[in-house]
């Protein structure tokens, strides 16, 4: 029998040829065939840096150990061999004072002005802190003292476009002073509309914390809780302009630009499209702030030289409350683990957060799901992470909002059935980490729940996302909760003031009575002294 040829090695050559052939397919340009557009194929796409929305978002895991190390490293002075060569310290803040801001504060409101309207159902904030003076009470104290207060509102698509936060901001600023939209990112990788601010940007490459694979490695630990970075070379520019969508948004008096410039760079900052100034930013690995004090309606930056990573800008004014909206789409909160602890801490030192709100959970519910213990544990880690990054802030966890889903059987929308369960797991996380909690779904229930929201046109027909009108209701409810805490504090202060006043009055009265009683004797004594004195003088003469 003739020995037949063995084709085993063909497997190798054949696979090699197929690899070459399929990689070669990438050279076929896109073309049209019978009205169908045929795209180029790319076998090597996973080897390229992902662009835009192509790569799937990544689920971060909490790494609290790394967080501790990172924060510990912040406090360590860099080792220097020879002291005389110690370079000039690089400035952290570049100031440009055009017109100093007058120190005008609102008057302290009365407790009855702050208290929610009569008959308004209040879903209270539950404070699980065990400190003698809880961190939430400290925050309310600051409000009552009319100190400058800054709130970081972290959330998902529920608050995208400044839904809810813009009304919350407006309500608090009207009551307690403060102006401006707060922090706004420099550029983000997709289009959004935000009526509380006009932002136009060009020339940047924007990255999202949700897509770490699409982010250059050197920038991955550079994310702030805003979740977006914009990297730009000379020519990249962004303009933030206030709008009059709410009464407290315009007439800002302070502008801050937050950026990071690894190598030295030159930047143009322009206010109100007229006045401008150039800044030389010394290259360094730390976050830098350009601080402008002037009447600002529009703030523009432009990279003139070098490469700059810009987080965004903050438009603020007056003294009072600033609310920053940090919404990151389809984030369950885990993206905070992808933000740089050092960056968060540095920016916190610049801006000084007093309250961090965590609004998450909408995307993790599945119809009928009843247990969320894994999410509860993640939430605990998120709280711990936020606490370490913002050590002076109180934390407020918001329960998940009401959500309905379409029933397979009836085709009608029904409650998803897991809102209460998730809310209780979120409350448990807040309880065990001793932070404050507020149930969004309870608040929505006071308006009749999601079905009422949709019926009233306050929510989208997906029975999941509220719109601006719905956001106003939820903001109103949250503000009510904050106001009732504040009203309680104010009324106890007022009572204290009254008590002190009464006390003073009583003391004055007592003194008066004493004076009255002793007046007679005193007059006699006085007369006697006068007489004695007179006679003594006479004697001396």
């Amino acid at each position: 029998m003739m020995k037949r040829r063995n084709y085993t090695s063909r497997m190798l050559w054949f696979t090699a040829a197929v690899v070459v052939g399929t990689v070669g397919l990438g050279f076929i340009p896109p073309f049209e065939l019978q009205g169908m557009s045929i795209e180029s194929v790319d076998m090597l796409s996973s080897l390229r840096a992902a662009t835009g929305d192509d790569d799937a978002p990544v689920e971060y895991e909490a790494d609290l150990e790394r967080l501790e190390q990172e924060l510990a490293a912040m406090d360590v002075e860099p080792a220097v061999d020879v002291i005389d060569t110690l370079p000039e310290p690089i400035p952290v803040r570049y100031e440009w004072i055009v017109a100093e801001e007058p120190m005008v504060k609102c008057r302290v409101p009365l407790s009855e002005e702050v208290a929610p309207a009569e008959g308004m159902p209040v879903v209270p904030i539950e404070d699980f802190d065990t400190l003698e003076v809880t961190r939430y009470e400290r925050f309310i104290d600051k409000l009552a003292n009319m100190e400058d207060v800054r709130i970081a509102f972290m959330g998902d698509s529920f608050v995208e476009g400044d839904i809810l936060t813009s009304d919350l901001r407006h309500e608090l600023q009207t009551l307690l002073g403060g102006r401006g939209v707060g922090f706004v990112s420099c550029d983000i990788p997709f289009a959004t509309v935000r009526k509380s601010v006009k932002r136009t940007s060009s020339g940047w490459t924007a990255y999202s914390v949700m897509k770490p694979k699409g982010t250059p490695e050197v920038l991955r630990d550079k994310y702030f809780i805003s979740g977006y970075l914009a990297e730009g070379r000379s020519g990249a520019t962004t303009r933030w302009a206030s709008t009059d969508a709410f009464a407290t948004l315009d007439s800002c008096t302070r502008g801050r630009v937050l950026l990071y410039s690894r190598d030295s760079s030159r930047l143009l900052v322009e206010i109100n499209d007229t006045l401008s100034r150039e800044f030389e930013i010394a290259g360094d690995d730390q976050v830098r702030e350009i601080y402008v004090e002037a009447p600002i309606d529009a703030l523009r930056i432009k990279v003139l030289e070098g490469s700059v990573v810009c987080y965004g800008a903050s438009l603020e004014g007056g003294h009072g409350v600033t609310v920053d909206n940090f919404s990151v789409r389809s984030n369950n909160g885990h993206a905070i683990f992808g933000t740089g602890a050092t960056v968060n801490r540095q920016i916190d030192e610049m801006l000084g957060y007093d309250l961090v709100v965590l609004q998450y959970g909408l995307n993790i519910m599945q119809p009928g799901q009843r247990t969320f213990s894994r999410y509860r544990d993640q939430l605990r880690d998120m709280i711990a992470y936020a606490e370490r990054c913002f050590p002076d802030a109180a934390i407020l966890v918001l329960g998940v909002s009401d959500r309905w889903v379409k029933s397979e059987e009836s085709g009608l929308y029904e409650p998803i059935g897991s809102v209460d369960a998730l809310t209780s797991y979120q409350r448990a996380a807040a309880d065990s980490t001793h932070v404050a909690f507020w149930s969004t779904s309870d608040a929505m229930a006071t308006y009749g729940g999601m079905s009422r929201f949709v019926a009233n046109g306050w929510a989208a027909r997906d029975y999941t996302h509220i719109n601006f009108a719905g956001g106003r209701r939820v903001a109103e409810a949250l503000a009510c909760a904050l106001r009732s805490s504040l009203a309680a504090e104010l009324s106890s202060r007022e009572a204290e003031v009254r008590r002190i006043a009464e006390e003073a009055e009583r003391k004055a009265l007592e003194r008066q009575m004493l004076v009255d009683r002793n007046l007679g004797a005193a007059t006699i004594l006085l007369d006697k002294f006068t007489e004695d004195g007179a006679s003594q003088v006479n004697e001396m003469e």
Partner: protein
Amino acid sequence: MEYLKFDNGVLERVASLLEYDATAPLTLTTGFFLFAFLLFGVGYVALRGRVNLRNAYVVLFSLYFYYKLSGVYVLLLLAVALSDYLIGRCVARRRERGRGTRGWVALSVTINVAILTYFKATDFFVGVINDLYGAGTLDWESVVVPAGVSFFVFQSIAYVVDISRGAISPLGRFIDYLFLLSFFPKMFLGPLVRAKDFIPQIEARDIVVTREDFGRGVTLIVGGLVKYAIIAKALGLLFVAPAFAGELGDGGLVALMAIYGFTLQIYCDFSGYSDIAVGVALIMGFRLPDNFDSPYKSATITEFWRRWHISLSSWLRDYLYISLGGNRKGHLRTYLNLILTMFLGGLWHGVGMTFIAWGLLHGVALALHKVWLEVVPGAKRFGSEMKPLWRALATTFTFNLVAFGWLLFTADDMAQVADMLGRIAENFSFAEAHTLVTGSGVAMILMVVGYAMHALPRSFDLAVQRLVTRLGFVGEWLIVVVVIWMVMQCDMMLAAESGGAAGLPMYAAF
């Protein structure tokens, strides 16, 4: 040459690609596999004459393959392999001494069934308890079923049972058993292999691939890609899923076509992926059993189960049905055993009413067919024995029985089954045919092409294989590259059309 330029992050991305990524499990149809198979091929061809090194090399690659598919569960695979390898040796020793082996076999079955039950039924029982005693009674996260776990567990049970039956002698070396269990082409979706057929291939000194083998392998891979990655995926995303969800209206004709569409989809999906596995193994010189034999040509339900997922149905027959007593304990027990076997087979797909109903439907149908064969004179077991007209009628009947069975199989719950049947019974109109053709034209063409391919006689398949073989290296290469290009185009169009990514084979869920 801009296309072949990469930025600095490329090495980092290659490194991260090599790691397990739960969002991108490795299957035979990924681009990653093509590159991995090329690298694997270098060592494989170099070591082909050295049986021990070659086998160790294949095992290592297979374990890596499973790691890329299921992550840490590769340890479960190793544990199952080790436990049944050791149990197999104990069983053989007791047999030699003429002593009973039931205890050891029971131990193996218990371990394996416990693993399966844990992964498949825990969620169900936790759900039941939490529904009874209130949410959170049991604090439990969903169990992720490791891909392919049933397949290696079944093969492992079969190995121990075969030894106890004296059908095979145990393997001397652990690595050979690991090879049998983990061989990567079949790792994910089978076909299940029998130790008896596969061990001689592992132990063979030389790997022999004939020109015909290679041609057949390429034909199977290409045909499998067309079935799995084009017909099944496109039909499912463009027509079946929206039709089931009621997005194409509530007409009866749409519902009926959706059921026939799913019938084709599940066949193309499963048999397509199986064919790719058989083809990949074949060009490496390993012969895996055929898993499908044009199942919808069956004229009886008994025949269907000889042509559908052959390696599983014969496993069910040999290790479940026969262990239950098979047909040796009288008529009544035979029928009961058939029903019980299919009931358990249904339950294996998932703990839920729809799968139980599907299993019972097939079990009862098989039992009734047995009764029919005994009661009706001249009744036939297979279509090939029937007269043409009778065969056509029987085939139509069987096809519809199976198709409506798939409705039970794929429905979310019994309410959806009732809904679909209600649509067909009460709202049927041929006037919808117009909207079907204009609205879902591509899907209708795919259905016609798919069923036509299925209807072609086996001689046609063989003729295609001969033709491909005759084309030789360059012709085969051209066909493979063109089909891969088509698959990639199809993926991109589907992603643009429905937003749905290509995903895993349907049977991956089992």
